[in-house]
């Protein structure tokens, strides 16, 4: 007879001294964990609820401007500095960490309409309705003293006067050129007081210009009447932004409440139409990861979209925030900054319920697990309902409902018209294509 039975000595399974860690044992046998799907589902549901509870995206407001904030620029070389320009000609450099103004750059006579920093972060370029382009030296942020060589900073490096008011400016990536937009698009060099090159398309005023992050010599512009240097959309496009990780794609923020993502190689249709705003989208900025972008709108909200999502992932609003004119994603992709009509810059978290600060590896792992189960069960009705729900201010809620009704009515009308016309005479065109009037080479 051969016999063996399970026998455990307590010493083997418990710690020796009270200073030791407790001994733990794993057995991944599925039979020991029954109903694991139900447990996972419950965890997903709880995680979704907890996310809702901890969703506190607003970090703080930065006040100081005396007029509406019209434009902002990230400093590509400095994580916590951000430039903002306002309608009264004031330009400020903010420290995001302390939420204070570090430096002011006085000089513009009218509204500042465009701000940009060179790729090395040394030069700040501003332009405005006073027909000037100004180049400023960016002060080096030091920990303690903010007041060193104040005199130098007060004067711009250069002031170039030109013949029309400016609407936007953008600096080339890894180069010495920058482009301004106004009655025409001008390409400038840092050291020359006149544009190197000038482009003009029709009679339109160009209102935004962006250099491609991948190809330093390609830029996209948008004009008042119709849009982007290659595509004509029915309504005005307020801003455009290239996807930093997929530099052939760009997204245009449109006056018709939608954003349109295009592949620059295939412009006959939009790749995605991002719709959720209820008023004109004023500005757009991609996250450095290229997976998300943030938009600010005239409807007083900031929304975050997935790069391929047709509806927004997140909506930010506060009672006091007025129409948003400019938004920026921070260079580390974890914050969003919005500048609005109420003269304030607001700082938001990009993930509303994310815990700030350093997480323990244990906490990190737990968070990853919860995210994974949430993703796994997100299609189930209860989880979906909780994840999707957002409280909206009443005017926006009503405007969204109205917009839905209008679109539904339009769709129905179209359908009826099609039903009563000769077959094939009214081909169905997807919305992605419909808004485009003309494509020019």
């Amino acid at each position: 007879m051969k016999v063996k039975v399970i026998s455990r000595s307590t010493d083997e399974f418990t710690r020796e001294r009270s200073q030791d860690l407790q001994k733990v044992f794993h057995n991944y046998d599925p039979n020991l964990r029954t109903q694991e799907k139900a447990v996972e589902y419950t965890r997903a549901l709880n995680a979704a609820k907890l996310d809702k509870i901890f969703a506190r995206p607003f970090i703080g407001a930065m006040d100081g401007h005396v007029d509406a904030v019209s434009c902002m620029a990230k400093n590509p070389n400095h994580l916590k500095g951000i430039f903002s320009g306002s309608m009264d000609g004031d330009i400020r450099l903010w420290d995001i960490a302390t939420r204070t103004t570090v430096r002011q750059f006085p000089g513009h006579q009218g509204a500042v309409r465009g701000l940009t920093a060179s790729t090395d972060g040394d030069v700040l370029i501003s332009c405005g309705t006073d027909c000037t382009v100004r180049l400023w030296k960016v002060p080096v942020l030091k920990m303690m003293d903010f007041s060193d060589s104040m005199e130098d900073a007060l004067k711009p490096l250069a002031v170039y006067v030109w013949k029309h008011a400016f609407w936007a400016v953008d600096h080339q990536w890894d180069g010495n050129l920058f482009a301004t937009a106004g009655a025409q698009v001008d390409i400038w060099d840092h050291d020359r007081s006149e544009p190197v090159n000038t482009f003009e398309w029709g009679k339109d005023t160009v209102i935004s210009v962006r250099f491609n992050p991948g190809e330093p010599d390609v830029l996209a512009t948008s004009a008042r009447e119709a849009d982007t240097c290659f595509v004509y959309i029915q309504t005005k496009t307020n801003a455009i932004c290239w996807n930093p990780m997929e530099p052939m794609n760009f997204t245009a923020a449109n006056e018709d409440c939608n954003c349109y993502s295009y592949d620059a190689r295939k412009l006959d249709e939009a790749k995605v139409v991002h719709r959720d705003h209820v008023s004109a989208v004023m500005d757009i900025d991609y996250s450095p990861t290229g997976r998300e972008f943030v938009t600010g709108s005239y409807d007083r909200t900031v929304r975050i979209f997935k790069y391929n999502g047709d509806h927004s992932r997140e909506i930010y609003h506060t009672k006091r925030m007025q129409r948003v004119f400019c938004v920026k994603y921070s260079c580390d992709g974890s914050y969003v900054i919005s500048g609005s009509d109420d003269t304030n810059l607001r700082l938001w978290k990009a993930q509303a319920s994310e815990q700030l600060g350093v997480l323990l590896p244990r906490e990190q792992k737990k968070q990853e697990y919860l995210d994974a189960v949430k993703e796994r069960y997100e299609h189930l009705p209860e989880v979906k309902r909780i994840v999707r729900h957002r409280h909206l201010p009443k005017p926006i809620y009503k405007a969204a409902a109205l917009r839905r009704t209008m679109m539904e009515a339009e769709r129905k009308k179209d359908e009826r018209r099609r039903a009563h016309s000769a077959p094939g005479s009214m081909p169905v065109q997807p919305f992605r294509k419909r808004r485009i009037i003309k494509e020019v080479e």
Partner: protein
Amino acid sequence: MVAKQESEQLMPAAEQDISDELELKAKKYLRGDGANLEVLRDKKLKGQLTVREKLYGQSAKAAAKAEKWLLPSEEGYLEAEGLEKTWHIKQESIIREVDVISSRKPFDMILPELGPYTLEYTSSGRYMLVGGRKGHLAMIDMISMDLIKEFQVRETVRDVVFLQNEQFFAVAQKKYPYIYNRDGTEIHCLKEHGAPLKLQFLNKHFLLVSVNKFGHLHYQDVSTGEMIANYRTGLGRTAVMKANPFNAVIGLGHSGGKVTMWKPTSSKPLVTMLCHHGPVTAIAFHGGGHLMATAGMDRKIKLWDIRKFEVLHAYSGHAQSLDFSQKGLLAMANGSKVQIWRDSYGNQDYRPYMSHAMVKGYQVGKIAFRPYEDVLGIGHSMGVSSILIPGSGEPNFDTWVANPYETTKQRREKEVHALLDKLQPETIMLDPSKIGTVKPPRRKEKPTKKETESEMEAAIEAAKSITFKKKTKGRSKPSKQAKKKQDEVFKAKKPFLEQQMEERHAKKQRTTEAELPKSLQRFARQRA
């Protein structure tokens, strides 16, 4: 392809063996076969799912590889040598062979006065609760063999059950179930349940289930105190109840020979199956979720596949109590004898493995395997005993599932986690893996118009090609033949035409219904 073959040839035999063994082990962690992705037409979905499946495969393989390091203990066994049979081996000879720690585990506790006894283990197998019919309750720490608390309630005790951990337990007493804590303090008297005969606790759901004298089934949430459900079984008094550990469905055995399965969210049983030609005396569920054992007064012990609700094997014999161990051994008690059966060949055909006879005259009332140990607890008319059953328990425990060496802090933490992950009563269903899956389309696909037309044409052709028997007296005149043929064609057409008519009629009705505005619908003619 050629390179692959070569590499296979080059692989040494030993390595091949290792990889085969690994694959065999990984199968357990795969939780079933992967989905058939070939049928998918959506390329994007197919790509995504392929990645998913690959990940599942990898994780299963990783778990199988880690098994070697994570699962140090091996399961017990009992092997006979020569002509010896395992069921003839006595407990005494086993005790002589095993180590000192294990030899202390079997015992006989003679408690002649307050008997017959019932017993219950915690899910980690550390604590045992003993209840004597005449009101004797005791909790024992099975590792240190300490008596934690012993007290008398001076009332009939019919059943005992542990709640979420050893801190609380419920006792089915004469008139009501009571909840006590480990110090013996009465915490609650659950009057709503009535006089209970049997108790069960579903620890993932925090549900205390009782069946009372009148055959009423009660589900009470012990974390909130809410009475979740209260159903009449309508099949009379029963004291045979077991929870299926796989899906938390409650199985009841009735005096009419029926076994019913219940969940808290439906007032009718999920399943009613006629198992025996007499009262059901005992019922037990295998942890894997597809095997049930029942015993009846008709001298039958049956094994059921509860996925198909079919009997797998029927053995003759009586049993007052049945229990499956973690490793799938089946214990059955009859009179003073206990038999352990084993599925030796993996085909669910259970054969005798061990047997144990108590002192003659003892009546065994309840048997329960101790989790994570090779021990069977026996509650009988003269006290409580335990015997060694090699190979019955899972040798490796998981600290986060059930830890026999749990510290106070770990226990508290676990309780909080258990409450956070508490499952709702709705999650109890026959197939718990159904959660999160897609509902299949309910309707059968209708044949298209073209298909029905072609079918009709084929039928007509077949009717036309019929040749008639030659008949006399002018019954095979060409005119008669033609008429007959026409009749046949008409007959063949008829069902199709009728169906068409019906469809048209239904459509018409639907449209008339839809046409009426809501305010006028009340004047519409009511359909008979």
